[in-house]
């Protein structure tokens, strides 16, 4: 009996010695994957497209959360402490620089994904503010992605080829997305391309796809570039009045609510201006897992479909 057990255990040892039999990773890759901690859902999606399963991508903001007003929790501090690389949007999207502070306190490297994008500067009460919602133009999304691939290739040089291969494919996806948006927007007559939203998040979108010509191709919204309390942010009675007048003056057929902003104000404005709610748009945050807007491409696609369906339908009625 003892001999049999001995033979069996020797056999097991021999099998276990064969390379790859009990290895969790068939490629023999190190078990520890680099960890990327991202501030917003858009940045996290771009990072996932670049790194695939080679890294762990974590996101601080939950889908639907507002980055302007977010207050970090002890759980976020712990998450950042475990990061190899932190990524944020930048241009003050993260209200009061919460992501920068988290990364600094944990002593982690931080990448600003919007670096290199010429910002749209908007004037509010004599103050010039850079609009942080740069991802609403796919050509800017390409800058985010290029910044991410450069940063992660430095953090994990062994994976550079893999990251670049994925990025090349994703950049082609963004190119196709841009062409598709232009084609869809073209269905709306130029004079009907009026986009009124809850807050000033769509400046880059309006400029890229020629919405709000009478507004200088900029957003039209009752709330400024941030829903928080920064300079040029929030809502003033003058601004509210001005938006209602603009809706009437420009002949806006509909207004749009945003998933990450309380819809109460824009609903009141729609009622007062006598226009319909055209639908709900993803703005500062993408959709929940399983929803159509859970990725950047999905979010842009759903927004464009919502906008074009609403505005082209109204154009047909006229």
């Amino acid at each position, binding site marked *: 009996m003892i001999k049999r057990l001995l*033979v069996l255990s020797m056999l097991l040892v021999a099998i276990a010695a064969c390379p790859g039999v009990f290895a969790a990773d068939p490629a023999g890759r190190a078990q520890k994957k680099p960890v990327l901690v991202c501030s917003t859902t858009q940045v996290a999606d771009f990072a996932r497209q670049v790194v695939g399963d080679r890294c762990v991508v974590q996101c601080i903001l939950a889908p639907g959360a507002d980055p302007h007003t977010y207050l970090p929790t002890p759980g976020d501090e712990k998450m950042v402490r475990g990061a190899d690389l932190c990524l944020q949007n930048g241009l003050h999207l993260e209200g009061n620089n919460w992501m920068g502070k988290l990364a600094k306190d944990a002593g982690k490297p931080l990448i600003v994904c919007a670096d290199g994008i010429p910002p749209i500067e908007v004037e509010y009460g004599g103050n010039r503010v850079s609009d942080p919602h740069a991802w609403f133009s796919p050509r800017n999304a390409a800058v985010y992605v290029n910044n991410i691939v450069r940063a992660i290739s430095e953090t994990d040089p062994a994976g550079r080829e893999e990251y670049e291969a994925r990025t090349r494919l994703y950049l082609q996806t963004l190119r196709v997305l841009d062409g598709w948006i232009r084609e869809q927007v073209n269905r709306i007559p130029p004079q009907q391309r009026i986009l009124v939203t809850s807050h000033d998040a769509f400046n880059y979108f309006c400029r890229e796809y020629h919405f709000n010509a009478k507004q200088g191709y900029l957003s039209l919204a009752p709330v400024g570039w941030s829903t928080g309390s920064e300079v040029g942010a929030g809502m003033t009675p003058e601004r509210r009045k001005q938006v209602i007048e603009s809706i009437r003056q420009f002949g806006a057929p509909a207004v749009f609510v945003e998933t990450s902003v309380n819809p109460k104000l824009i609903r009141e404005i729609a009622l007062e201006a006598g226009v319909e709610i055209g639908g709900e748009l993803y703005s500062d945050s993408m959709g929940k897992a399983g929803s159509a807007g859970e990725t950047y491409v999905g979010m842009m696609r759903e927004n464009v479909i919502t906008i074009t369906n609403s505005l082209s339908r109204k154009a047909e009625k006229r």
Partner: protein
Amino acid sequence: MKRIAAVLLLWIAVFGGLALYMKRLETKRPAPAPEPPRIESPAVYALEVTTTFNVEPDPFALRTDDSGKPAALLVRIAEREIMRVAEVQAGIPVRAEPVAGIIQGMNEFFVEANMPLDTTGKSVALRMRLIGDGLPVAEQTFWSEGESRIAGTFRVGLDKDKEGNKFHHDK
């Protein structure tokens, strides 16, 4: 003890045999056929590219470093770049001369050019001409397919027969 020895012997026999078999397969593999000699064409060649649109750097290019603008117009033979230009005006030909490495046989020029995103959906064209010793050898026009980029392969076959140089190109 005998059983242990038997298992070990069996183990060595199986894996040893397998290793010998794999080694034999490696040695039996035929040597790769030698590549046919590449004979460079004796003529002096120039490549001319004309576009009906302003060529701009591709905003969707992979940029792994911060060095300058990405190419707006790029022509290459295999991995070798023949032409790399950052900006091209519509209707003004861009020329590369001399183009080295043109061989007798099939030559493939891969071309890609990026148009402004605003022109996406409009039909635009790019013409390539290969000029040999001052005479047009072959030309081809590429049309956009509703995207913001034109990419294609200009194939030129250069044959030498008794009558001298004879050219053909595949569309």
